[in-house]
């Protein structure tokens, strides 16, 4: 699994680079538009180390943000199931806030939260939780009649039970979305770092852009890809294990 994913990622990355080089030599773009292999190698040898640390830093925050956003999505989705008005109000709120580009909201966030991990986490979570929310709303708002009938007709149904039933019936879909949203957590964190300009690989990317250094960016993207793949694999492992535990006996 891990081997495969990493290998596949390498292939994809190589493909991308190849495409860039093809373009470079086809259009005869000079080194400052698309850096040559030599320069990329040089950059890698210098920055691989520090960037790796930055990526790990980012990954740590991303994992936190991911957990946060899972919690957030679950909460909102459950509230969104509430009686007509309140529920739709909460959904409207979630949707509308989502429609605001983080870049526009960021200054306000900084005013309210100041800088530091707080706003970084919040921004990451805000970017990552929405895909989760959408699936969760869809899943939690769709009854599973053959199972729920008993609890309904014996007045045993509580919202927790209902959520549990629907979540369990859709465990496969849920784990797909949760695993997949890990990448959103990653990108969310990077963007947060990018605009909050604190630390992590997002910060390095910002500087690389400022220095118009595509080589650095390519190195960063490579490490981000590796980091993400690792996280994805471990999550998939976790998900598989959990599902197995339930399929057993």
């Amino acid at each position, binding site marked *: 699994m891990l081997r495969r994913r990493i290998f596949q990622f390498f292939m994809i990355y190589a493909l991308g680079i190849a495409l860039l080089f093809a373009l470079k030599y086809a259009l005869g773009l000079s080194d400052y538009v698309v850096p040559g292999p030599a320069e990329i190698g040089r950059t890698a040898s210098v920055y691989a180390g520090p960037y790796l640390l930055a990526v790990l830093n980012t990954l740590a925050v991303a994992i936190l943000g991911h957990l946060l956003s899972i919690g957030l999505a679950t909460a909102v989705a459950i509230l969104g199931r509430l009686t007509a008005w309140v529920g739709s109000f909460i959904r409207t709120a979630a949707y509308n806030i989502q429609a605001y580009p983080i870049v526009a909201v960021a200054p306000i966030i900084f005013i309210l939260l100041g800088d530091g991990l707080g706003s970084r986490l919040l921004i990451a979570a805000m970017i990552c939780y929405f895909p989760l929310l959408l699936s969760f709303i869809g899943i939690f708002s769709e009854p599973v009649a*053959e*199972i729920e*009938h*008993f609890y309904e*007709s*014996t007045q*045993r149904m509580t919202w927790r039970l209902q959520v*549990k*039933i629907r979540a*369990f*019936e859709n465990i496969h879909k849920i784990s797909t979305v949760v695993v997949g949203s890990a990448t959103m957590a990653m990108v969310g964190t990077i963007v947060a770092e990018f605009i909050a300009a604190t630390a992590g690989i997002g910060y390095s990317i910002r500087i690389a852009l400022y220095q118009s250094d595509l080589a650095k960016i390519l190195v960063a993207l490579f490490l981000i890809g590796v980091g993400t793949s690792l996280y994805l694999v471990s999550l998939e492992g976790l998900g598989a294990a959990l599902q197995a535990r*339930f399929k057993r*006996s």
Partner: protein
Amino acid sequence: MKLEVRQLVFRFPNASGNLFSDLSFQLPAEGFHALFGPSGVGKTTLARMLTGEIRGFSGEISLNGNRRVLYTYNLERLPGWSSVRRHLDETAPPARRLQAQELITEFGIDGCVDSRFSRLSMGQQNRANLVRYLLQEFDVLIMDESLANVDEFTREKIILKIKALFPERCFLYISHNVAEVARLCGRILVLRAASKAPQVVCVQGADHAPESPAPQPERLERAMLEIVHAA
């Protein structure tokens, strides 16, 4: 305190004709009774009306204080996160844990209730689900083909057990097995096409009970014939 239905008229929206036109019947407050009739005649629909799940009919349904009408059908499932036994324990009132075990044994699912519901055979699923309901508080329990996938021998055992354990409750058993209902049920409500009048014919069954002598063959014969002719 009998259950009574008067001049029920109903048609499904976007259905061509009436499903029920002037349907009336009564049911005693106790005993094990049957709702019988050809497939598609409206048994499930009628049941869901008694529970109030389907509305939009004219005529009246008076439960006369049978407050708790439960409806169970053969496609129900138990959640998958724990074994059937645990679900039964969790949903049974503490006072009835013992009875739960008794039912499990008598219904012949002791061997499989420790695995998850999805692993059970259809008949095992039918029985596990039914046990669940029997452990609840109810005045009337409507069993919609709840034993459809169980073999006849076990089925009779189960029904006799139910009659023995809950003599004061009212059961409405939906089944397609003439012999079975004729032999085991008290009243047999034979539901017929809306074209026929009356739409419900009530046949007296042999109402065979445990520890009582087997009903005479001719009595059964008669009941079965009445049912078949009515249908």
